[in-house]
């Protein structure tokens, strides 16, 4: 693993060069945020400001979320007339972020030829909420990481507290199987290997081992905290719909408030809409101001996609998206079959069944 400050230096030099040589109009990276354990996205256009870029374990935002809006097709002819040509964009990508870019390319939301993808092997990012919880009653006033990757926090009285990395990494990172970007134009730093590969499966199995009533109770308890702020949706690179099904008013699909039934449908429908598209970056979880583990649902769907169809989102830009494709022999043992033979069987029906038997 290459130390993060070394990668940071290379990142700044790379961005500076790309901007200076006009290979890109815009470079998407991270800069220091005002609070510890966080960074904030930086949309860089001036080469001389490349020094603002940072790379560390707090670079949590999945920057791919900004791509669809940069390449949004004009809404109408009038807009098309005044539209500027699509920009060339450089972007920093972790393994999961790169999968999002792949999925966006698959879904024709971003043109590959306009992108310069700067990949970084990712050793996982810190979940700020977890880190803050770990400090208990203290508040960090500053945070950083040492060469071993441990997270150091400076609290009110100036004491430095070391946080065990595994304890503060985002859940999605603990479950990550592909920390290396699957697609990129250049890689900064050395390769990173995934530690555990079945963590997600174990977590899903653990939940699944509970009886249905307990699962339902847990699910309801968790989402009862939801305030419908839409942060999970807005932070997701795959939620780029011009008008979200859950927002539409003609007709209104679900109520606007936090009635538990509406919240339930919100989360189920949102998860289903990311099925086969979710690249498991965990942006939704980290965006949630209420600490809801939205990946409870998306994790399961990703596993189903893999088990049923051998499909993992964001693996190949040439692949047909999971739900746009099919195979004749896709499993269908979930279908309802009659428990007895049809009561009145006509000759046409027999012929039909005979045809089917062949």
């Amino acid at each position, binding site marked *: 693993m290459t130390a993060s400050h070394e990668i940071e230096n290379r990142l700044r030099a790379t961005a500076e060069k790309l901007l200076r040589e006009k290979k890109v109009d815009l470079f998407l990276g991270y800069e220091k945020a*005002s609070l510890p354990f966080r960074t904030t996205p930086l949309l860089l256009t001036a080469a001389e400001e490349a020094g603002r870029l940072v790379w560390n374990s707090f670079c949590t935002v999945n920057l791919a979320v900004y791509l669809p809006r940069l390449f949004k097709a004009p809404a109408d002819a009038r807009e098309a007339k005044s539209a500027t040509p699509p920009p060339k964009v450089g972007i920093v990508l972790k393994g999961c972020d790169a999968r999002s870019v792949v999925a966006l390319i698959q879904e024709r939301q971003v043109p590959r030829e306009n992108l310069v993808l700067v990949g970084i092997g990712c050793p996982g990012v810190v979940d700020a909420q977890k880190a803050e*919880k770990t400090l208990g009653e203290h508040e960090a006033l500053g945070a950083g990481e040492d060469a071993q990757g441990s997270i150091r926090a400076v609290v009110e009285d100036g004491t430095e507290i070391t946080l065990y990395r595994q304890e503060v990494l985002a859940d999605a990172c603990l479950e990550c199987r592909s920390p290396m970007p699957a697609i990129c134009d250049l890689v900064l730093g050395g390769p990173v290997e995934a530690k555990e590969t079945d963590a997600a499966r174990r977590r899903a199995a653990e939940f699944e081992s509970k009886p249905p009533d307990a699962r339902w109770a847990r699910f309801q308890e968790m989402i009862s905290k939801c305030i419908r702020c839409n942060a999970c949706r807005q932070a997701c690179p795959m939620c780029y719909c011009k008008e979200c099904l859950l927002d539409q008013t003609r007709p209104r699909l679900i*109520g*606007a408030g936090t009635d538990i039934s509406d919240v339930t449908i919100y989360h189920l429908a949102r998860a289903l809409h990311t099925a086969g598209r979710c690249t498991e970056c965990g942006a939704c979880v980290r965006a949630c101001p209420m600490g809801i583990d939205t990946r409870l649902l998306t994790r399961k769907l990703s596993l189903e996609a893999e088990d049923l169809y051998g499909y993992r989102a964001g693996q190949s830009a040439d692949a047909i998206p999971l739900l746009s494709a099919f195979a004749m022999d896709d499993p269908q043992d979930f279908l309802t079959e009659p428990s007895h033979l049809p009561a009145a069987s006509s000759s046409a029906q027999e012929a039909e069944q005979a045809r089917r038997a062949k």
Partner: protein
Amino acid sequence: MTEKRISHTDLPRLLARLRERGPVHAPLEDETGDAVLTELSSDDLISLRYRNFRLSPKSFLLPQNQVLFRFQDGKEEEPALPDREMVVFGVRPCDAKAMQALDKVFLDGDQNDPYYARAREKTVVIALACTRPLSSCFCTSVGGGPGDGAGADVLALELDADLLLRALTPGGERLLSSVRDLLCDAAPSAVKEAEDRVRAAEEQIAPVKVDGSAQRLSNAYDSPLWASVSQKCLGCGTCSFLCPTCHCFDITDEVRGGTGRRVRTWDCCAYPLFTLHGSGHNPRPTPKERWRQRIMHKFRYAIENFGRPFCVGCGRCIRSCPVGMDIRTVLKEIGV
């Protein structure tokens, strides 16, 4: 004004007594260790270790979902409004201050809002002064402070072994006198110590320049900076929904067959649908205009209308922004 004193060990008795009058909401830790204002039942142990709650207590006055009335066989039926007094214990001064701001909107208009008015009338707010502000706090720059009780009925100040209680409104006086057998007078030295603690807290809070924001923002309306500061905004409503002063709402009908309800629900100016006309026209079509509206509303329009910013410096929007945006930085960049 005299301060009353009660020991931390007697606090449960006081809360139990208050529960005889009506529901009492106080900070309880949930399974994740977060303090949440929860309705107390007999044996709950309250926690005073929190700095503030994730959600602002505005929902006691302006619930996220409020049934305005019900439809029954084509006729409207008004819901029964609460008639029992409720106590909310442990509200931080910033959030109490925010209630005072909300009063300006819902009580000082030409038409009072009957739902808000009743909730406000029936809610006794006991604020708890801060001794350990967070680095994202900036209440002192927007007219508040860690020991400011404005908006609350009673202010509680923490000492090692005791809690000092100061009634700020007639409602607060009534509340304290209903439990006066549990209280004793606080010694002047105790009051001084509590005030020193608040002062120490005040000194920890870094100032943000907000004075004169209305004037400066009126000059900055056409600034190109709005486009750049709004660039990374995702357009979620986290900041608004957590904000103790944000109060915009939507009204929708939920009906099945002939019965249902008209509900008002929180809404947010960051959403494109907020201003979208039926015709398709949108007066605030991009994040640039919507961000500007948010800042302008809080730091200019509110000052012009109500003489105060609609921001109490609680810092929730800073802590919870999914992309780490900081309203203090934005104000600075825009030249406030």
